[in-house]
């Protein structure tokens, strides 16, 4: 019996059809064709569009589904490979063109693209998937709106292989927004067969049963434990992945993950803490990539009286112990965002603000302000983000004490953080970590500096910023006004300081026996480029 199974195992290809019958994965699973990745996060859905799907689950959309286009890649000065926002590559679309008025985007689909069940990927599937993304509400619909897509009537399947998107106004964000994980293409025939009247978008079915055309399919998903990706050998969306199978195990404890990667029993540990990254860098390959368009900052709520005073805000900016925070909270991983030049000559973002720790300057500004005697304020942090917020808050508290601001640290549970910091915007002094998927400065300003928008937790309002962002958000980056507008936004942000940048955080990944890691803006595992390193 046991002998039979052995022979069976060595001969059987571990296709998804056979896999559920196996008691073991093939004995040679460890050599060459399988990668084991550990992560501390849990995947809670295989469908990004579902209400309640968490960030970690976005990787399923990336690895198992295709989009029309994707971003290219580039090699950073550090030698790490990162996505390249300025380049778009074909995935399901073979080619695309934008009409002269910028309102119509026409995509020609790759005629060879096939879903996992062998059926052809048609424009109808693309339309159904886009309709779904704008109709289900919640995060997917908001992200689609960022690219100017909000209604199903904007999408047309002209013929089997031609798909068009009609915009209400030309926008430079429309095409890049098709390369984010949200507008992934679903096998609509399979989905519709499992839809019900109450559930027209087959949310319940696709939650557990992906139906796509992507590079990997899900061979097995044990919620809260593991996800097994199995390569789709018929994939046409790009170069075929080098590994046959990627096993993603969820291990909540950092210490356990570290022991596993150090021992080499797993080949990759995704999103490791900064401290582990700096210690493991000596013995393993550690990739630390600054996260594009993401800033860890101190936010000063301008509806709270002392922070209405510009001198108080400047005093805080000069009091922050930047270097100490960068070392204690980030272990020097990422990019510093202080001590930059006064003059704004480029549109690089995130950029160092021209402030540095200078307690004399801070005291001078405090003395000039209407709060020369200091004041008391709670400094709020999220317990869910305590790994960087806790040390940052302690250092900040100490430094603010030097200039007469008595801060008491207020730790808010993770579930409550979003509500009080972002939705109600009721925290006077707090830490914030917004990062934008679409990598342009004006996109960051739209979310974090425009009044009423979610990440403007400072309740900041500046008339000029409002009109600048409105004018610039959809403007092409080669427009003659673009650079000037963005630089003006920078100047206002530097002067007004509703948010004081601390540093640009890094995403850390440790590898031991694997290669081919690429950093992506969505900060999740893209398994398609991974290779097994021969030991």
């Amino acid at each position, binding site marked *: 019996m046991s002998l039979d199974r052995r022979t069976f195992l060595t001969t059987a290809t571990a296709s998804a059809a056979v896999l559920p019958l196996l*008691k073991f994965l093939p004995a040679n699973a460890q050599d060459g064709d399988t990668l084991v990745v*550990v992560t501390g996060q849990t995947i809670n859905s295989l469908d990004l569009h579902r209400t309640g799907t968490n960030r970690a689950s976005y990787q399923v959309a990336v690895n198992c589904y295709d989009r029309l286009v994707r971003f290219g890649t580039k090699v950073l000065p550090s030698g790490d490979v990162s996505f390249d926002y300025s380049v778009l590559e074909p995935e399901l679309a073979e080619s695309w063109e934008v009409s002269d008025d910028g309102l119509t985007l026409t995509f020609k689909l790759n005629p060879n693209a096939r879903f996992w069940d062998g059926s052809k990927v048609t424009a109808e599937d693309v339309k159904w998937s886009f309709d779904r993304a704008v109709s289900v509400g919640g*995060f*997917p619909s908001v992200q689609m709106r960022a690219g100017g897509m909000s209604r199903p009537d904007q999408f047309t399947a002209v013929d089997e292989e031609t798909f068009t998107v009609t915009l209400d106004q030309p926008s430079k964000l429309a095409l890049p927004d098709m390369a984010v994980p949200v507008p992934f293409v679903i096998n609509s025939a399979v989905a519709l067969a499992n839809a019900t009247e109450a559930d027209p978008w087959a949310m319940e079915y696709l939650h557990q049963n992906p139906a796509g055309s992507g590079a990997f399919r899900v061979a097995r998903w044990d919620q809260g434990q*593991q996800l097994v990706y199995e390569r789709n050998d018929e994939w046409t969306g790009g170069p075929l992945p080098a590994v046959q199978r990627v096993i993603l195990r969820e291990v909540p404890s950092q210490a356990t993950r570290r022991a*596993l990667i150090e021992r080499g029993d797993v080949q990759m540990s995704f999103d490791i803490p900064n401290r582990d990254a700096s210690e493991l860098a000596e013995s393993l390959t550690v990739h630390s990539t600054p996260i594009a368009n993401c800033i860890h900052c101190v936010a000063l709520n301008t509806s709270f009286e002392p922070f209405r005073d510009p001198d108080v805000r400047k005093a805080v900016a000069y009091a922050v112990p930047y270097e100490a925070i960068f070392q204690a909270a980030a272990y020097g991983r990422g990019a510093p965002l202080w001590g930059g030049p006064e003059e704004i000559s480029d549109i690089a973002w995130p950029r160092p603000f021209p402030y540095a720790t200078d307690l004399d300057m801070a005291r001078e500004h405090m003395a000039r302000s209407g709060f020369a005697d200091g004041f008391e304020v709670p400094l709020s942090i999220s317990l869910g983000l305590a790994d960087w917020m806790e040390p940052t808050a302690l250092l900040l508290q100490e430094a603010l004490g030097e200039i007469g601001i008595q801060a008491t640290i207020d730790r808010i549970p993770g579930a409550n953080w979003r509500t009080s910091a972002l939705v109600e915007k009721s925290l006077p002094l707090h830490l914030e970590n917004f990062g934008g998927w679409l990598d342009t400065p004006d996109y960051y300003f739209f979310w974090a500096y425009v009044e009423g928008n979610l990440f403007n937790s400072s309740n900041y309002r500046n008339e000029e910023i409002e009109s600048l962002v409105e004018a610039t958000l959809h403007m092409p980056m080669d427009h003659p006004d673009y650079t000037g507008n963005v630089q003006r936004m920078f100047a206002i942000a530097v002067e007004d300081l509703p948010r004081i940048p601390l540093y640009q955080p890094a995403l850390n990944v440790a590898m031991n026996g694997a290669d081919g890691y690429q950093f992506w803006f969505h900060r999740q595992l893209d398994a398609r480029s991974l290779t097994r390193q021969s030991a």
Partner: protein
Amino acid sequence: MSDRLGVRPKMSLLTRFRSDAGPGNLKRTLTAISLRIAQTLPVLIGVVLISFVLTRALPGDPAAYFAGVLADEASIAETRERLGLDRSVFEQFLLYAGDLLRGDLGISLNTGQPVLTDLAERLPASLELTLTALIISCLIAVPLGVWAAVRQGSWVDHLCRVLVTAGVSLPTFFTGILLIYIFYYVLGWAPSPLGRLDFIYLSPPHVTGFYLIDSLIAGDTETFFAAARQLALPAITLALFTLAPIARMTRAAMLSALSSDYIRTARAAGLTPRTVRYRYALGNALLPVVTTLGMVFSFVLGANVLVEKVFAWPGIGSYAVEALVASDYAAVQGFVLAMAVLFVLLNLVIDLSYALIDPRIGFGAK
């Protein structure tokens, strides 16, 4: 006469039960059990009510949480409506109670699965770990406690004290990481601490949800040993923690039993020390030990979340914590209710075992 002196008739536990369970007795016991279960209904209703009110009273807005990273006001309102949170609390409760009566615990937003399915997957994992730990713990703690009581003040007694102090004073996550460091990282004896099974094994066909039992049912000894190896370190971690109360309680109960009148009588009657110790003293000392065991079990089942995290064990503790962090109402309520039902059953079993251990405690009388 002998009864008044405290020396009970020599009977094994089984014969004691059988003599008690004549046809009339059996019927009486069954009636008593059903009465007991009926009595727990108000408790359960109270638990349902309290868990409902408490989850609503918690800070945190599930609509804001589940609307996702870029949610604006409109999409939060949309999400709230979809989750049924725009209705009045009273209306929500009626809906929830109605679903409960149909045996529907609702859908967990976090996992997207029915809460019942989640519990059915995770509860066996926790139970398997906890029960194994308690068995290990009892196998060590009870003999140790007995020995320490018999040889009071000897090195065994001191060893017992040291073990007990170490057991309670070392937090479980620390012991867990220490054991991983020694047995996995340095010595390489233990398998990768990757949860219930290493990734090269697939879980056995689901019958009970206990991997050890399921793999045996499937006749797959290889998976059985793989599961046992994975189970060893977390179970030992938890056993070390639960050792203390059991050993202390055994020792104390044994000491008071050994100094009681009936033991003196038994000794005077010329019974061998062995019979006196193990049949009469231990038999009587078991009662408080079983009580402690029940308390330890119920405490550990909910509280072993740290061990679950360290060993990536997909248990019920980490499920509840994740649900709580996300304000996942249905999941939290389901967890509380499942625990309440479990404790009710546990207490019933403990009461039954009292009647087995000591025939003077009639179950029907309760």
